[in-house]
């Protein structure tokens, strides 16, 4: 499909998220994405979840340290509900996790460069 003119394209915010769990656990992007969708669906409902449109774009995880970072995309103006939904992510792939939004950027590059 032909791409949208610039003023009609959705505007995004990118949340730099720190994920912490027990050392030795292994998490991957799809587990985290599923957990984020469930958390958003349960807290914000279908309508709110669709508005926030959370997507995990980058995910890196160091299994030895049990720490990882992710870049989560949310619709511009929906950062607060997105933050709330991310705070409700307590388990990913059966491991209990601590999630913390380290910052918010207007571009993915800004998000990954500043909060690596």
């Amino acid at each position, binding site marked *: 499909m032909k791409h949208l003119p610039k003023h009609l394209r959705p505007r995004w915010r990118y949340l730099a998220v720190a994920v*912490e*769990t027990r050392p030795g656990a292994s998490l991957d992007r799809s587990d985290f994405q599923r957990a984020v969708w469930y958390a958003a669906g*349960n*807290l*914000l409902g279908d309508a709110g979840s669709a508005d926030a449109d959370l997507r995990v774009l980058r995910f890196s995880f160091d299994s030895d340290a049990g720490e990882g970072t992710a870049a989560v995309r949310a619709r511009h103006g929906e950062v*607060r*509900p997105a*933050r*709330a*939904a*991310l*705070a*409700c992510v*307590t388990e990913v792939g059966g491991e*209990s*996790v*601590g*999630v*913390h*939004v380290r910052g918010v950027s207007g571009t993915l590059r800004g998000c990954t460069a500043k909060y690596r």
Partner: protein
Amino acid sequence: MYEAVHVAPDGESPAADVVERAARLGFEGVVILARDATPDHDALGDEAGVDVVDGVEIVAPDPERASGAVGGHRPEHTLLAVRGGTDRLNRFAVENERVDVLTRPMADDGDVNHVLANRAAANGVRIEFDLGPVLRKTGGRRVQALRGLRKLRELVADAGAPFVVSASAPSRLGLRAPRELVAVGEAVGFDPAAVRVGLQEWGELAARNRHRRSASFVEPGVERGPYDDEGSS
């Protein structure tokens, strides 16, 4: 902003881990609500660079036993909380001026009404809004917790009762940053400013009680002044 935490053996994580993570999340201080734990507050605070408050949480099956524990623990700790969860315990806590905080009033079979909220306001007993079930439960359990929070919110606002907010984290991973708690509060109907006030209230309580326990304090409004030789006549 401050947060109240449980540490091993009451919680799942060692005190040092909990305090370190709380500092990293941006809290200015933590109140360790101890039952059996005996952490070294000053050493923990120096290590992590945050204020660590010596608190105790009394978990008793009935007011008779809670009353004894309040008398025993009050002189030893900066901050004293009583865990609610039954109507009788909630009533006991809000009637007792020596209690700083009533925690988890709506958990289990507990309930609060306008009479209790007014007593809490009169006695200065802080009522805790426990966001833990909102963060960690789903489905019916969460709906119940939200219903309780909403009722509590309306009663507390009407009575003008003081309150605190906490995530009641069972382990270090259960901690959430202040901004996250504000966002969650807003998502479930709280005024964001009220959540911030509730998080700051722990710190203000600790400061007030430390002042009261200091040597110069006699009673509210009466203190030993700095003029002992020339000023007195």
